[in-house]
């Protein structure tokens, strides 16, 4: 998809792929035939540049044809470089400029509470994104409003465009920070499907907002991309993509899928 587009963000899409797959194919209550079903859980992609992983999950769920994916970022395609809630079925909010998704999620969670809707909001953010001050305005507000229908998942892959997060602007310790802001906090291996599914399900019963710090590997599953900041926002060439897909469809991934029984 990203290769066909010639641009895009494979690194952060891959680090979050296990989380997004767990959500769409196991955890979320949703109905691709009725994307606006009021009773659904909502998935919010705050780190909008990782649109490819969202689009892949939506297409495989049946929100739109899988063949659309190769037209990512093309002039007549609904799949924008960053998600657009009015163009792509299943996209809940428009995102791209970082640090806004958690705040929008709070508004949605408040609206759902006013309407007594049963769904939960699962918001995926990046660790680099958490350098935005607004994330902490939102962290404060979510616990202030005692939102027990909100889960934030921080895809902590430790990398951002300019290098390692700890070198660019250290955001750690993320678990202690969210805990100090009043969140129920859980740290998991975000590329271990069993842990991911378990944490997402457990978050449903948290007494307030729940933060899952998912330790992940940027570029997960593609040997030459793993832990390499250079693959944050670069499209693989055709040969590279072939190698990546071969590696990704290998044994390891298949095994972890079988574990969650999907």
């Amino acid at each position, binding site marked *: 998809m990203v290769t066909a587009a010639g641009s895009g963000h494979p690194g952060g899409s891959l680090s979050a792929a296990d989380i997004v797959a767990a959500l769409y194919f196991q955890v979320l209550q949703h109905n691709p035939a009725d994307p606006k079903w009021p009773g659904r859980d909502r998935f919010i992609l705050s780190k909008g540049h990782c649109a490819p992983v969202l689009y892949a999950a939506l297409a495989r769920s049946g929100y739109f044809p899988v063949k659309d994916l190769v037209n990512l970022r093309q002039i007549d395609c609904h799949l924008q470089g960053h998600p*657009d*809630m*009015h163009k792509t079925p299943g996209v*809940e*909010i*428009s*995102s*791209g*400029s970082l*640090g*806004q998704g958690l*705040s*929008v*999620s*709070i*508004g*949605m*969670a*408040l*609206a*759902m509470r*006013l*309407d007594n809707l049963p769904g939960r909001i699962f918001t995926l953010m990046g660790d680099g994104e958490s350098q935005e*001050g*607004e994330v902490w*305005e*939102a962290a*404060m*507000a979510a616990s*202030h*409003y005692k939102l027990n229908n909100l889960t934030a998942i921080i895809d902590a892959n430790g990398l951002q465009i300019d290098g390692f997060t700890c070198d660019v602007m250290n955001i750690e310790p993320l678990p202690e920070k969210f805990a100090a802001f009043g969140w129920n906090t859980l740290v998991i291996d975000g590329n271990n499907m069993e842990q991911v599914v378990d944490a997402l399900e457990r978050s449903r019963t948290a007494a307030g907002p729940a933060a899952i710090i998912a330790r992940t590997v940027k570029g997960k599953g593609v040997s030459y991309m793993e832990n390499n900041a250079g693959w944050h926002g670069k499209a693989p060439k055709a040969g590279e993509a072939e190698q990546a897909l071969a590696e990704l469809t290998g044994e390891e991934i298949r095994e972890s899928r079988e574990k969650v029984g999907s």
Partner: protein
Amino acid sequence: MAAELKPRATREAYGEALLELGARHPEVVALDADLSGSTKSGNFAAAYPQRFFNAGVAEANMMNMAAGLAIGGKIPYASTFAVFATGRAFDQVRQSIAQPRLPVRICASHGGLTVGEDGCTHQSIEDIGLMRMLPNMRVVVPADFNQTYAAVIESYNLPGPMYLRTGRPNVPFLYEQVPEGLGNGCDILKEGSDISIFACGIMVAKALEAARRLEKRDIDAEVVNVSIIKPIDADTVAGSLSKTGRAITAEEHSIIGGLGDAVAEVAAEQCPVRIGRLGIKDTFGKSGHPDQLLEEFHLTVADLVNLAQDMQKSE
């Protein structure tokens, strides 16, 4: 002018109209960023605490919470001072409100210099320009209490986002009763043939007074209250320009980006005439009593009269 009514601030009309909307529509919610007493959203907060959300001193979070509430089917009214609503939270308004065309009503008080003593940090002179630049955004600057009330009530039915600017000081009543709505947003309050004065906000009352004084000097000024600055009613603007052949714009805002530019754009494309722009001349404000500031920054009735006379003479 409804002279018998005691002047009242447009922000008070916002507070009262919001209360009425709250009573009529359960999906109306309100937000503020620790200024609910000043913006007057506090009226709503007291009456409907379950539907009021104070974000604290966190305007960016407030605007995005408003966006989320709108996505959830609510009609959010979000208030703070104009300078924070449009400057501090510009990116949030841009990405999460304007671009997705969400029905968030940004109702900002304390527009312009008449904030007064707080000084330039709190005097919003760029807000109209910032909001006018955003696609999908409707920009509304009512002239008095009653027109503000109408604007707020009418806004309930708008499909997309709106920026509404109110002010801190008391202003004279121009409309004896709450009008039906803003109509096309270009209200010709006095017809004239020699010069068009397009004004918004607190400058409309001054434009009417200037027109009275100009009449004694044989200048027949037309006064147009432009309450909807975007989308501007280009037909009415061009019609007035073609009738009078010259114009003044008057606003409590920078001469860059606001009403003056909006009128000049219509003129340039449809009816090129000379335009004198009365506004803040690409500078920041300062502390002082509102009336002193309006004098120092040349936003008085006398300034309007002088400019109209100069334009008449120089032709």
